[in-house]
C-alpha cells in the first residue's frame, strides 16, 4: 500500500492562494510587497540555462564560458545517496573574488540545479539538498575573478529521486 503524496497538501493550498493573489495583480507581475527584495537580487532568472538538457549546454547558456577543474573547489557529497530525492551537497572554496556558485547534475533531465549569487562579504560556501534521477556526476562551478573553476564527483544513486 503506497500512500499518495498528500504531504504537500498544506503547501499546495497556500501556494494556490499565492497564485490567486498574483492573478489579481496581473500574471507575470511580481506582487508589490516583494518587489524590493527581488529587485535587490538585481538579476533576471536564467530561464534558458535551466531548460538545457546536458551540462555543457547549461554552462554555455549560463556563462558563455568554459570552466577548468580546480582543486581549490572542494565539494562534499555522499558516495552513495541514501535517496535520490534528497542528496546533500555542499561546496566551499579558497578562491578569491567569488561572485557565484552553481550546481549541475549530468544525468538529470535538466542538468542545472541551482545558481547562487555571492555578493562581496558573503562566504563562498553553500550547502543544499538536490534531486538526482540516477547515478551521475555532480559538477560545481565557481566564478572567481572572472574565471570559471569546477569540481566533479560521482554520486551513486540506488533509489532515484525522479519517481514517486
Amino acid at each position, binding site marked *: 500500500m503506497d500512500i499518495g503524496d498528500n504531504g504537500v497538501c498544506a503547501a499546495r493550498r497556500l501556494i494556490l492562494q499565492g497564485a490567486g493573489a498574483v492573478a489579481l495583480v496581473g500574471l507575470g507581475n511580481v506582487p508589490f510587497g516583494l518587489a524590493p527584495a527581488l529587485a535587490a537580487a538585481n538579476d533576471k532568472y536564467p530561464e534558458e540555462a535551466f531548460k538545457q538538457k546536458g551540462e555543457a549546454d547549461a554552462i554555455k547558456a549560463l556563462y558563455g564560458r568554459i570552466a577548468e577543474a580546480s582543486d581549490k573547489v572542494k565539494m562534499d557529497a555522499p558516495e552513495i545517496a541514501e535517496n535520490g530525492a534528497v542528496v546533500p551537497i555542499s561546496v566551499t572554496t579558497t578562491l578569491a573574488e567569488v561572485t557565484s556558485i552553481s550546481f549541475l547534475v549530468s544525468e538529470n533531465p535538466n542538468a542545472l540545479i541551482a545558481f547562487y*549569487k555571492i555578493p562581496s562579504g558573503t562566504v563562498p560556501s553553500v550547502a543544499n539538498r538536490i534531486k538526482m534521477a540516477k547515478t551521475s556526476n555532480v559538477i560545481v562551478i565557481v566564478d572567481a575573478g572572472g574565471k570559471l573553476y569546477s569540481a566533479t564527483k560521482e554520486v551513486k544513486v540506488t533509489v532515484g529521486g525522479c519517481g514517486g
Partner: protein
Amino acid sequence: MASTIRVRATSNGDTTEVQTLIQHPMDSGFVKDAKGEIIPPHFIQQLTFEHDGKNVFAADWGGGISKDPYVKFSFKGGKKGDDIKVSWIDNKGATDTTTARIQ
C-alpha cells in the same frame, strides 16, 4: 497561517550562518502521479536574503532542488538581534516572505 519559511541565523561575532528550510513541493515537471499523469512543474525560482538593506545571498533554482528545500550560507557581519529578510517566488508567481532575528 504559519510561514512556509523557517530560518535559523546565528552569529559568532564575526560571521553569521544562515540556514533555511522552505515548505514547497518543488515539482520538477518530470514526475508522474499515481494515475500516470505528469505533475506540472511547480518550483521556487528565486530566493533572496537581505540584511540591513543589502542583498547578502540569492538563489536561482530549477526543479532539481529537493522538496522542502534547504540551503545554508554564511556572510561577514550581522550581529545578534539584527533582522534577516527572506523572500521567495515560484514559477506560478506565488511568493512568501519572512523576517528572522539573528541569534
